[in-house]
């Protein structure tokens, strides 16, 4: 018996287990996805999930009381107020700019269109620190407008206006970026129809354009807001980081960490993380809404 079987097994004897090799495509099909999924999730766990969970674990490690107490300190309250004001000013300003830019660019093809699109995207490519530096060189004491500003006793650098400028610079592209594709897809036939029916420019905007782009616009505004509230580098350069004066939440987090006030740092970090979580959930919902519209 073994002698008869030998010739058949001969060629693949080095492999020791020929039947397994024959079945390998099917078997591989079974374990390859599992291995890949495990690798992917492990990587995400180390890079994203554990750091994210750690924020909450550290903030609540001494109980909810300790967490809540941090949220009533004057420095924290001032930082939170400053962050809110920054967002309240920069988000609407950037929204108006984004809408105008999207309207101007999506309307028609013209030479230099790609260039203008790249220019609008530029703040994403410029390091936040370099953006802050630019604003200092423009409005700072030795900057272009420095002498004039000093003569008129206007403070921009190391003060709130400079922080507004830096934040607005950093989150400039979001709205235009989200609205342009939506506008392009919607086309302008409906607006032209409204115009021939005698609608005014404002009526066309409120009744026709805005309903078409509302989800894209909202998404752009949410991203702008997340970035405006979270911006660190550019604001750190122009603000001077004076506790209780020019220190918004992200700078408060760093300062508290550097002063070994871990509980204060993590309590503020929890709020900023919740902002990120809300942003992600809103993104998920808005993407679903636009997808449903596409299908229709």
């Amino acid at each position, binding site marked *: 018996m073994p002698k008869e079987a030998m010739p058949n097994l001969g060629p693949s004897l080095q492999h020791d287990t020929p039947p397994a090799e024959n079945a390998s495509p099917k078997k591989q099909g079974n374990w390859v996805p599992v291995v890949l999924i495990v690798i992917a999730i492990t990587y995400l766990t180390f890079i994203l999930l554990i750091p994210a969970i750690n924020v909450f674990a550290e903030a609540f490690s001494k109980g909810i009381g300790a967490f809540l107490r941090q949220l009533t300190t004057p420095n924290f309250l001032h930082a939170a107020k400053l962050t809110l004001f920054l967002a309240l000013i920069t988000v609407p300003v950037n929204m108006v700019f984004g809408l105008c830019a999207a309207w101007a660019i999506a309307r028609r093809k013209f030479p230099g269109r790609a260039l203008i699109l790249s220019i609008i995207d530029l703040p994403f490519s410029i390091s*936040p620190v*370099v953006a802050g530096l630019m604003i200092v060189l423009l409005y700072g004491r030795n900057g272009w407008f420095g002498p004039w500003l000093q003569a008129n006793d206007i403070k921009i650098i190391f003060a709130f206006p400079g922080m507004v400028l830096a934040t607005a610079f950093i989150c400039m592209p979001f709205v235009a970026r989200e609205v342009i594709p939506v506008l392009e897809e919607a086309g302008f036939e409906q607006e032209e129809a409204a115009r021939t029916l005698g609608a005014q420019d404002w009526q066309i905007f409120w009744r026709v354009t805005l309903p078409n782009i509302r989800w894209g616009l909202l998404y752009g505004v949410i991203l702008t807001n997340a970035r405006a509230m979270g911006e660190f580098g550019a604001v750190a350069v122009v603000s001077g980081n004076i506790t209780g004066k020019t220190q918004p939440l992200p700078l408060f987090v760093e300062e508290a960490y550097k002063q070994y006030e871990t509980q204060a740092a993590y309590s503020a970090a929890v709020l900023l993380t919740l902002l990120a979580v809300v942003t992600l959930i809103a993104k998920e919902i808005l993407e679903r809404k636009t997808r449903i519209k596409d299908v229709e």
Partner: protein
Amino acid sequence: MAISTPSQPIAAGKNPIRQLSKLSWPWRITLGYLTVMLFLPTAAMLLKASTQGPANFWRIATGPVALATYDVTFITALLAGATNGVFGTLIAWVLVRYNFPFKKAIDAVIDLPFALPTAVAGLTLASVYSDNGWIGSLFAPLGIKISFTRLGVWVAMLFISLPFVVRTVQPVLSEMEVEIEEAAWCLGASQWQTFWRVILPPLLPAILTGVALGFARAVGEYGSIVIVASNIPFKDLIAPVLVFQRLEQFDYSGATVIGTVLLGISLLILLIINLLQAWGRRYA
């Protein structure tokens, strides 16, 4: 000749003004905002840099500390980009092709680095990867320190650049037809051959674009790295932090020169990204 030359500048000067008045309001607001917010600040920095003169500019831009920061910034960002090129593609593949529990949640979590303020990222990465942190304590017995070293810079760069690769590769992958792979497989290609010869070539432009986008972001990153690193020159000091330190010492020319170098490199990466995207469109 002498008479005609003065009239030309006037005509040329009048034309833009007349063109500007013909522009609609959205155009005026767009160009005005871009001028005040983007062009003026950029011009201020470039002019300030140009007052240095080429020799001085070169001396500051290639000073020993500056060179060390370029090494840390660009080499580490490149390594982080390459790492994410592999793992980001793998994650995109897993998310597009396979079904598993919590897939939707994991897909949504990928965008966390876009939404999470960088200061929070730095704070939590610094403590998770420190010697007594959740992950750092696993490596500490091996003598590997992550937080406050160059490895920490690498981890922070991994964190912030991951979504760029995944989100660029994902749409291309989901548009790819499974039939082509099945055809390759039917024709006798092994899994590796199918991957290298059929799947990877059309994905490559998207992967490289994602890596370049992530690299650009990592090179400019400040918030998370300033917290996760010890910011010591020649060890783990990155170029954006150096710009910040120079500004704190009121060394405006030093900050401007290094800032200009960073701006130039950002623009160069932007150009490369555009070329990569043009290449990718050939496959579409």
